[in-house]
């Protein structure tokens, strides 16, 4: 009997060692936690990826591997799952951001599995560092953008010609009506001249309206008028946009801080478009800090009445006075490369959401870009 127990125990030990040796060779990091978020096991790949030894992190809360806002919310995520059983990530996976011991963040693909062992629930997280893949994706995107640049200029030239052609007609008419009205006003006024001048001004207004409609039609045509506005979590949007935009920030030693107002988490937006805005603003902020001794990026949100204000503050070189007045106009840029349409796109997107975008000097140099979005916890038509 004792021999049987001993043999069974040996087998279990052997199997555990075998499993451990397999897991040690898996390139993805593996972190095992209990249902309260306490780390139970930390693979060799995880040690390398995060910079901690397994012995140091056993017993710690897994949230230590995350940046804000996930760090302070993770206990809540676990509680929510324990209470409701609703899966937000288990078996689904997502792209998010992790933090190394040195304080820098990096994008990861996280997959989570759940198991019951001896009556206790455990979660296994498989973490894949996607910095390199994202870097390659971004390089490819840059190359595609450069290739498309020439094509876009050509298309824009065509577009500008057709717009000029269409607008020339009402503009010429406006000029001629205004000149006629001016001539009429110079002479002695009688009832007939008054009526003619009034008629000329009415025609001027009608032609100006027509010009406006031409511009609106062109904008509708270009935007296709297709956006999907729905209630989204700003924290989720931010996490995904950060993961992409902060690629490479680690090697530049950029401190990133995210402070989200819990009252402003629900926003009524097109998720992809807002991620585009965040991506553009964060990349601009990083570019602006390349020559700075202090490189600190702070992203905050604040709920106010029916809008949420998002602020992206950098400690870069600030905006040149000469560029400031027309910064959101297309083809305005301070960069060596780049078409200067990023901020123009941001403005178009934000205004299409009923918000506004602006910038102001930072408290200690640098720039703060702010934009507003409609809150999603209020009623929308």
């Amino acid at each position, binding site marked *: 009997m004792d021999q049987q127990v001993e043999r069974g125990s040996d087998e279990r030990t052997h199997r555990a060692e075998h499993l451990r040796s397999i897991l040690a060779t898996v390139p993805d990091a593996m972190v095992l936690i209990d249902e309260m978020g306490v780390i139970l096991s930390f693979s060799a790949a995880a040690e390398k990826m995060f910079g901690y030894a397994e012995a140091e*992190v056993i017993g710690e809360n897994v949230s230590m591997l995350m940046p804000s806002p996930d760090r302070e919310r993770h206990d809540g995520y676990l509680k929510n799952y324990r209470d409701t059983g609703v899966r937000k990530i288990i078996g689904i996976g997502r792209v998010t951001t992790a933090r190394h011991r040195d304080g820098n963040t990096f994008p990861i693909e996280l997959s989570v599995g759940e198991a019951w062992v001896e009556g206790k629930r455990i979660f296994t997280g498989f973490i894949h560092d996607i910095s390199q893949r994202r870097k390659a994706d971004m390089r490819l995107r840059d190359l595609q953008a450069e290739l498309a640049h020439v094509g876009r200029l050509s298309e824009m030239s065509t577009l500008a010609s057709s717009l000029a052609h269409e607008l020339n007609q009402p503009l010429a008419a406006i000029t001629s009506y205004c000149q006629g009205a001016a001539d009429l006003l110079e002479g002695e006024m009688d009832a007939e001249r008054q009526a003619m001048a009034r008629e000329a001004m009415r025609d001027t207004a009608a032609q100006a309206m027509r010009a406006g409609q031409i511009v609106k039609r062109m904008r509708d045509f270009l935007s296709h008028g297709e956006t999907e506005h729905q209630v989204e979590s700003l924290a989720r949007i931010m996490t995904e946009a950060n993961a992409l935009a902060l690629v490479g920030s680690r090697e530049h030693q950029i*401190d990133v801080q995210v402070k989200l107002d819990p009252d402003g988490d629900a926003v009524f937006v097109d998720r992809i478009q807002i991620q585009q805005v965040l991506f553009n603003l964060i990349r601009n902020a990083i570019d602006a800090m390349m020559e700075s001794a202090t490189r*600190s990026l702070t992203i905050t949100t604040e709920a106010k009445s029916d809008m949420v204000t998002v602020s992206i503050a950098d*400690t870069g070189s600030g905006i040149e006075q000469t560029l400031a007045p027309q910064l959101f106009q297309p083809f305005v840029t301070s960069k060596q490369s780049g078409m200067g349409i990023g901020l123009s796109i941001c403005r178009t997107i934000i205004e299409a959401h009923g918000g506004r975008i602006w910038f102001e000097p930072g408290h200690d*140099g640098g720039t703060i870009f702010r934009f507003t979005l409609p809150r999603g916890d209020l009623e929308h038509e």
Partner: protein
Amino acid sequence: MNWRSIRLELGSTGEFPAGSVGRAYLLRLPLDDCDGVDKTAYRANPARATVRRYWSTEPDQQGLLIPSGHDWRLCCDDRPKRVLKLNGTPLRLGLQVSMVEPDGTVLPLKIASVK
């Protein structure tokens, strides 16, 4: 350039007898040849002396390090101030310094890395 990133991790306390790597501070300070703070370099660029606080399950905090006698005050937004007490201890790997919390509690911090 002698500006360094110094990571301080919570040392042994009643609550955490083995210390805790999930509770840490990341300081940016200029160090001299003896691993003390280089005050001349600091005065040339005080805004560069920053601190990040990573505390398990709490939001990150970020702010400036302001000299106060032999100590350094941590100014993170409008939060109550903490004080880093060096007491002449060089900022060298493995040594220990202390942090005075807003409620007066003194926490030991190990110097976990200097880069």
